[in-house]
């Protein structure tokens, strides 16, 4: 692999910032580190950049151990959350800084700076000072400054954190476009799960300094490895079930209220085990699935409907105090007519849409 992190750990006094993290990234990949505040995302990025030393483990970049290399010899492009533009330099000088440090000729500097500014669509702003730019423009300058040195890896630490929602979405698309145009291996840090899912080739989910899971957005969303991942990536119904029967590919299990549920079998699950099962709200519907897709059904009472424009979350009370959240699309809602509080309703979800997260014998 292009970039390999091997068993990295880091303590600060009595805080474990990074706990035995190993992962690898292929050349040209767009990988997102996703996790709540304090989960160690920045610390890992700073280790790759060389600002923080790990207590143990090693980092390999392009086959070379870079642990002992000082930051200024690593040739990595970094964009910080606060952009960290040099306030006493113009846009031109900021972007040219890395080239100047590399003793690139004046003519080539001018050419490459112009190219980089064009890539981030900021041509014409060369003479401005950072404090004469908007937040989004500063962000672009920081990006241009990082890509102009043709870095081995581009490290982006919550670069969109300070932008408002609309600008943020624009910049997400822009970042993907730039990544595709340059093909540079990119690590993007965010604590916004939607941003992580829409932008990345792969997502690494961190919590408490540990790597919980790394996979494609679809993979981590639909097949989370832990209940933390399931819960952190969008809304989740986490059902506690008792296994009553195991068949070849199907497990039959009971909700606390007694309803029987079928779950696709994975791993070794035996009768009498307690299992935790994830069902995403989008898979739960007021209607049975089309065709003869095998599905689970549960009788519920509507507790509350909260509208979100494109659809609504229905909070439902199932048998035995089980609470379910279903996401009902606007179309389905229109067909069904308005559901009111206390209304009895049957909900359905395809058997294949449930995932076993954990098992306790």
């Amino acid at each position, binding site marked *: 692999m292009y970039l390999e992190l091997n068993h990295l750990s880091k303590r600060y006094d009595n805080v474990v910032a990074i706990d035995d993290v190993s992962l690898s990234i292929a050349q040209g990949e767009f990988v997102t580190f996703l996790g709540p505040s304090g989960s160690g995302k920045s610390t890992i990025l700073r280790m790759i950049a060389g600002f923080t030393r790990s207590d143990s483990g090693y980092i390999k970049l392009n086959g070379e151990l870079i642990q002992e290399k000082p*930051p200024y*010899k*690593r040739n990595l492009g970094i964009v910080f959350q606060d952009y*960290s533009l040099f306030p*006493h330099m113009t846009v031109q*000088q900021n972007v040219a800084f890395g080239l100047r440090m590399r003793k690139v000729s*004046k003519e080539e500097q001018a050419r490459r700076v112009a190219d980089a500014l064009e890539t981030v669509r900021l041509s014409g702003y060369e003479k401005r000072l950072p404090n004469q730019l908007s937040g989004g423009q500063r962000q672009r300058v920081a990006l241009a400054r990082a890509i102009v040195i043709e870095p081995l890896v581009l490290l982006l630490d919550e670069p969109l954190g300070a932008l408002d929602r609309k600008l943020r979405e624009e910049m997400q698309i822009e970042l993907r476009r730039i990544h595709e145009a340059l093909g540079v291996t990119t690590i993007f840090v965010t604590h916004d799960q939607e941003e992580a899912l829409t932008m990345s080739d792969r997502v690494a989910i961190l919590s408490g300094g540990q790597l919980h899971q790394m996979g494609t957005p679809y993979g981590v969303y639909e097949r989370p490895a832990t209940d933390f991942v399931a819960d952190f990536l969008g809304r989740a119904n986490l059902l506690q079930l008792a296994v009553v029967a195991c068949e070849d590919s199907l497990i039959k299990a009971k909700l606390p209220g007694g309803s029987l549920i079928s779950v696709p079998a994975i791993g070794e699950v035996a009768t009498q085990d307690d299992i935790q099962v994830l069902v995403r709200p989008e898979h739960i519907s007021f209607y049975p699935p089309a065709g003869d897709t095998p599905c689970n059904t549960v009788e519920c009472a509507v507790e509350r409907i909260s509208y979100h424009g494109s659809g609504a979350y229905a909070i439902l009370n199932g048998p035995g105090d089980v609470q379910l959240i279903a996401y009902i699309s606007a179309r389905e809602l229109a067909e069904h007519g308005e559901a009111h509080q206390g209304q009895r309703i049957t909900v359905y979800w395809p058997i294949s849409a449930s995932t076993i997260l954990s098992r306790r014998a």
Partner: protein
Amino acid sequence: MTQSKSSLIKKRIVEAQWTDPMVLFRRLAVAPAVLLTVIFFVLPIMRLAQISFFRNVAGGLMEPAASLENYTAFLGDPYYLTTLGQTLLYGVIVSLLCLLLGFPLSYTMVRIQTRAKPLLLGIILYPLLTNALVLVFAWLVIFGYQGPINKLLLFLVPSAEPLRIIGTPTAIIISMTHAGLPFMVLPLMAAISNIPVSLEDAAASLGASRAAIMTQIVIPLAMPGILGGCLIAFTSVLSGFLFPLYLGSNATNILPLQIYEKVSEAANWPFGAAITFIVLLMTLILIGMGTLGKDLVARLARSSD
């Protein structure tokens, strides 16, 4: 949303008038300080300006006049002009030494993470917190024939002659640098702590070595503090007479000492006042130059390459 909020605040500020009790209170609160400054600073200076045009008569008396003879006596006498030059030289040497010592010190003080920071700061700022006379006596002990410096020298080289330090420019420069250091360190620390560490990290990631980070990022951004610190250190030389008085010799030529001698020994108030005004004028010119320098530095930084 935020637009309307800020315009609301602006409106409130505009509306705030004398009738507003808060505004009234704020204006009354600064009144004592303004009054004190006028009584104990502005009025005496105006009186001093007046005296500098008076004529000295024997016996420490003076005669009201509007003559420039004190000024022409100063500017026409090579002895005083040499003194002026010497004073400026002392000022330059002391500020440069303060800067050379103070910059690494301030940088380390700002960036270092240690619980001993307040203690270190206390040691550096100590000259500010104590009477200059106490410092003078400390230096008299340290520099003396029996002082620690000569004891160490004789311990290392038993055959050596004890050094005569008191009465030399070295003693004056060392003591004034020590006293001026806090004036350098305070504005420098303020300036450096305004430079986010992430700027240095960003520069490093772009390929800048430690030296390049210092010359390209830290020093240019700390320039207001550097200029401010040099200015105050320089003026501390222009105003300090205790160090040259006790640690210098008869040959020491420095303006503050001249003022002291004219006033307290020769009892020539008008001439002392005139020298005071020349020093004051120099200080003002320096401050002007410093302010212009700041603008110039900012403009140069922008237009370079």
